[in-house]
Each structure stands twice: as structure tokens, then as C-alpha cells.
């Protein structure tokens, strides 16, 4: 069963198409990567799926629930982690996890959820310190733990390792990989092609609001005769810019 179905999704701001008629789906047990240059429409897509932005047209269904007509049910199934998401600085790490657990679980189930979050964050005794004393890597581990501790059916992660050093990024990637089960899926966006190659079962390349390529990393490597995703990405981007040139000359 598909946990996410996106068809003909379009988002416009005036005459500008931020996302233009995109289609993709994510099945249970999958990690799906949305890659593309800055301003390609990745974050807009993630925000629409997370019920933060409205769509202009098309259809988005999470676990069978429409994001526009049934946003509350969608929010029960998802967990969204914005790029460089912050936390409430006056709370301790544990208090922050308890605060979020308060939205997702009944009182009896909350301690177990918080325990799971603490185990994902792996901050040791520092979980009882104020978040304002955390390093960037620690804060990210806490927010990743917050996003995954409730075992969401669909975790939506926007640039989960952005700004992290090699060690912290590696840890975060392992957390994401371990979190996946047959009944859950992850949708992530990233600039890091190696990360996408390592983590994702399937990827979609988005440029100018349009999905220009979709497939598994291996199938794309074979199709484009490249050894890694970065080369594929560069090849596609170059092809697209060449394709745009006649239009620009005409203009």
C-alpha cells in the first residue's frame, strides 16, 4: 500500500509555479529522496504534504487522507522536520520530548514514547540539560528523535543533515535508516548526493518545480552511465540548462 500519493500537484504564487504538476508515490518500508537545486520546489512540496501550505491543484494523499480536506488525520500519520528546525530554548531535552509526546500519545503511553525519543537522541545525561546549552549536532539529534519517536507512518525530513559535521551527519543517517519499518516510510530532501545514494530506495530529481527523473539509485546510474548520484544530478541539470537555452535566445 502506498503511504503517500502525489498526483498533478501544483503550487503557484501569482504567475510563478513553485511546483508544477508533479507525481510520485511512496510505499511502506521505503525511503524516498527528493533532490534538486536551490529553489527547485523541494521544501514547498514537503510543506504541502505536511499540511503547512495549501496546494493550488492536484491531489496529495497520506495514508488515504487528503491533505486539504482531512488535514487533522494527515497530521496524525506524519512527522515533519523542517530544515534547521529549532527547539524551545528554555526547555530541557527531555521536557521537549515530553511536550511533543503530549500531542501524539495518551498519558499512559507518553513515558514509553519519551524513552524511545531519548534512546534515538542518545544524548546521555545531557538530555536533562537545557536545549540552549546544546551544540548544533546535539540539537539536530534531539529534533530527529522528536520526529521519529512516535513511529510516524510517514516521516518528512527536510535536509536532515544540513550543517552537521561528518560524525553527526553519519549518526543522523544511521538513525533514519534504523527507523524504517514495513509500515512506515521516509520522505527526505537533500543536497547531499552521497547521503541520498546511501539512504534512499528511490529518488526523484526536481528542477524548476517539475520532476525530471525518478527511479532507484542503481537504475538511474545505469540509465545515465554514471558511478554516483552526483554525476547523474550534474548531467541532468546540464541537459536541462541546454534545453532552456533556445528558449532564452528566443526571449
Amino acid at each position, binding site marked *: 500500500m502506498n503511504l503517500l500519493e502525489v498526483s498533478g500537484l501544483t503550487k503557484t504564487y*501569482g504567475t510563478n509555479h513553485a511546483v508544477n504538476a508533479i507525481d510520485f508515490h511512496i510505499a511502506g518500508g521505503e525511503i524516498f529522496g527528493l533532490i534538486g537545486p536551490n529553489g527547485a520546489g523541494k521544501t514547498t512540496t514537503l510543506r504541502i504534504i505536511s499540511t*503547512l501550505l495549501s496546494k493550488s491543484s492536484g491531489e496529495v494523499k497520506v495514508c488515504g487522507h487528503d491533505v486539504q480536506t482531512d488535514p487533522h488525520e494527515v497530521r496524525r500519520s506524519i512527522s515533519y522536520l523542517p530544515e534547521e528546525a529549532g527547539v524551545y530554548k528554555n526547555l530541557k531535552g527531555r521536557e521537549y520530548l515530553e511536550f511533543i509526546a503530549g*500531542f501524539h500519545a495518551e498519558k499512559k503511553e507518553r513515558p514509553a514514547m519519551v524513552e524511545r525519543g531519548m534512546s534515538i537522541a542518545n544524548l546521555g545525561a545531557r538530555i536533562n540539560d537545557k536545549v540552549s546549552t546544546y551544540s548544533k549536532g546535539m540539537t539536530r539529534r534531539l529534533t530527529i528523535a522528536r520526529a521519529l519517536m512516535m513511529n510516524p507512518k510517514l516521516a518528512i525530513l527536510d535536509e536532515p543533515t544540513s550543517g552537521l559535521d561528518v560524525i553527526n551527519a553519519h549518526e543522523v543517517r544511521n538513525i533514519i535508516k534504523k527507523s524504517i519499518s514495513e509500515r512506515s516510510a521516509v520522505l527526505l530532501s537533500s543536497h547531499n548526493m552521497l547521503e541520498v545514494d546511501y539512504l534512499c530506495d528511490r529518488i526523484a530529481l526536481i528542477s524548476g518545480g517539475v520532476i525530471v527523473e525518478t527511479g532507484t539509485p542503481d537504475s538511474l546510474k545505469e540509465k545515465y552511465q554514471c558511478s554516483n548520484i552526483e554525476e547523474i544530478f550534474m548531467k541532468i541539470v546540464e541537459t536541462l540548462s541546454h534545453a532552456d537555452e533556445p528558449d532564452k535566445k528566443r526571449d
Partner: protein
Amino acid sequence: MLMNLIKKEIKELLTPSTVAVILVITVLFGSMGKLIGAAKDEAKKKPTIAIVIKEKGPLADRLREFLRTKTTLIYEGDSREEGFAALKASKKGVALVIIDQGFEKTLLAGKPALIKVEWIMRGAGLMDTISSGILERTFLDLNKQISAHLIDATKDKGDLSSSHVLNPTVKFENTHYKSKRIPALSPNKIAQVLVSQSITIPMAVMIIIMLGGSMVITSMGLEKENKTLETLLTMPVSRTTIVMGKIMGSAAVGLFMAAFYMVGFKFYVSSFETGTIDLALLGLDLNAFDYILVGVSLFSSLLFGLAMAMLLGIMAKDYKSAQVLTYPIMGLAMIPMFLTMYRDFDTVTPLVKTVLFVIPFSHPMMAMRHLTLDNYLLVSLGIVYSLTVTAILIAIIVKIFKTDKLITGIMPLRKRA
């Protein structure tokens, strides 16, 4: 290079919102200046009074003549009832002065003579008692006239004590303050007693609203800056719950902090108060129900302030821009604060009355004064009005929370096009 840096600083600091704040402050100071100017003009005017002088003789003529010069007489006759009616009918009448028959005889007998004064107090604002203050000073000059007459009349005999000649009269005064008749006090003394209602309450309300408002706006700015708002909005909880949670949380903290501020401010203001007059004896005290109403009025007004702050907070991009957005609330709270300090609701023009009623912050500032005079209707209407406006604001906020504007920001029309 220096110019380059200066240009950058000016560009950074002189934003449209900063200019708007400067304009608001200029207008507010201008209005304050106008108010003080009006107080100065008022102080130059002669007080309007009615006199009933039943005494006959040269002293009575001298006093009548003196009062004709120093005041504007709207009634001069023998009937106390007629004089009082004329005074009440006049919008500016301050007092009815009665000098009974036998006035000079009492004085010459070495006893203090009685001047009866029936004051009309129209409001408890600082400017409402200017005329009565002028009349009080006129009474001192009136006493000098009497002293001079006594010296002339008894210069050959010299059997009056100097203290009697210098203080020849005793004032028997009552103040009619709307529906109440307060014995043995002039409007000025009553105004001194009510100084806490005139100054402390408006200031305290303003502090509460500013504290609560800035908390909500700052919280919104920080939520946006730290991207915690995006996380919050994807939680399985209704937008109304998020909005109400923010408002109620800030209201609780605002009231708690305000309680401490008010204690400190009360100590400061009590140094100006006349501590010897018991409000209960004057019938100007409040009962438990009145205090509950004042609390409800304050809370409903605070809720409006917080809802307004939240609406403004939606426009905040970050912590810095949030700070500037508190100024519209401050401006809106300052208007009723100054108006209610200087004038009573009943003594202002219909336009000012409308302005005062429309701004929900006015109601808790005026509530105590209204309840002192048992004007429950106005206080209740104020509460209902504030809650209604708050409910409308919350509905608008929830609607905005359901749109993209919270994430994408509210763009100026020009840019959007």
C-alpha cells in the same frame, strides 16, 4: 568607507516600521501637549457658580461684588433650590455658595461665620476638578475681603482676636458627585482620594497589556525564527487550540507579572494619596462583586490585547521585527490611559466617548470609577464588547493560521503583484 557603513546602518535601522513608530509617538506626544494646553486654558477661566446671599448690609454687598468679579454667576437670588437647579442645568457649574442671614453679626461676635458650599463634581479626572480648585483659591481671597471688612469695622474697638480676623469663616461643604452626595469634602479632596483610580489603574492596565502583548509577539517572532512554529503546526491539534494556548498562557503570565508591578506601583502612588479619608464612609468603596467585575473587565481587555498582539505577531519575521510590532498596542493603550487620567467618561465630548468605548483597553481603566458610582451597565457593556471583539479577532487569527500566510509571510500588495 565610513559613509558606506553609515548608509548601511541607516538602511538597517530606518525601516518603514521604525518610521511608523516615530509617527505614532509624535502624535501621542502632540495629543498630550494639547491636553496640557487645554488644562492651562481651563485654569484661566473663571469658575461658574450660583450664589444665594440672604445677608443684607455692606459686607454682603462687598462679597457679592467680589464674587461677581471673580466668578461667572449663573444665579444670584434667595432660593437655594432655584440656585442649585440652575447650577445642575449648567454644564460648567461648579458650586452653589450660600451665605445666610446673620453672617456679619456672627463675625462681629467673634465667632466664625458659616459659608455653605454645595459642590457639583462632574468627573474624577485630573482636568475635571480644575474649576473647583480655582474656586477654592477664590474662597481664600473671599476670606481676605472679610478680614479687611472686620478690621475696618472694629478698628476703634479692637476687641476681635487676630486669629479670628485672619480666619473668619468656616466652610460647610457637600459634594454632589453624580448620584452620590458626599458630606464634608470638596471635589479636590475627593479627587485626591481617587487619585489611584485616576492614575494607578490606567497605568497598571497599560503595563499588563504591554507585558502580555510583547510576550505574545515575541513568542511568535521566536517561533518563526527558530522554526518551532512549523513543527507546532504539523502536530495533530486544531489551529484554534494552538491560538488559544498561546493567548491563555500569555494571559496567565501577564496577570502574574502585573500583580507584582501593581504592588510596587501602588506603593509609589500611595505617597501622593490622602490617607485619612475612608472611602467606605464616603460611599465610594467597592464591594467584592465590584472587584470581580473589575477583574473580569481587565481580563477581557487583556485577552483583546493578546489577540491583537497575536495578529501583529503573524507579521513578525523574527525576534527583531517582533519588538517593533508591540508599538501599535502601546499606542492604542496610551490613548485611553491619558484620556481617562485627565477626563471622566461623562465629561468628554461624544466623539471622545466613542473613541474611548471602541478601544477595549479603556474599559478596565474606567471600570473602578464607574463602579464607585454604581454604573454597572457601562462596565458590563464594556466586558461584553471586549469579549466580542476578542472573539472576532481570534476567528480572524485562526483563519490566517489555516492559510499559507503564516509560513510564507504577509507580503505587501505591490510585491505580491
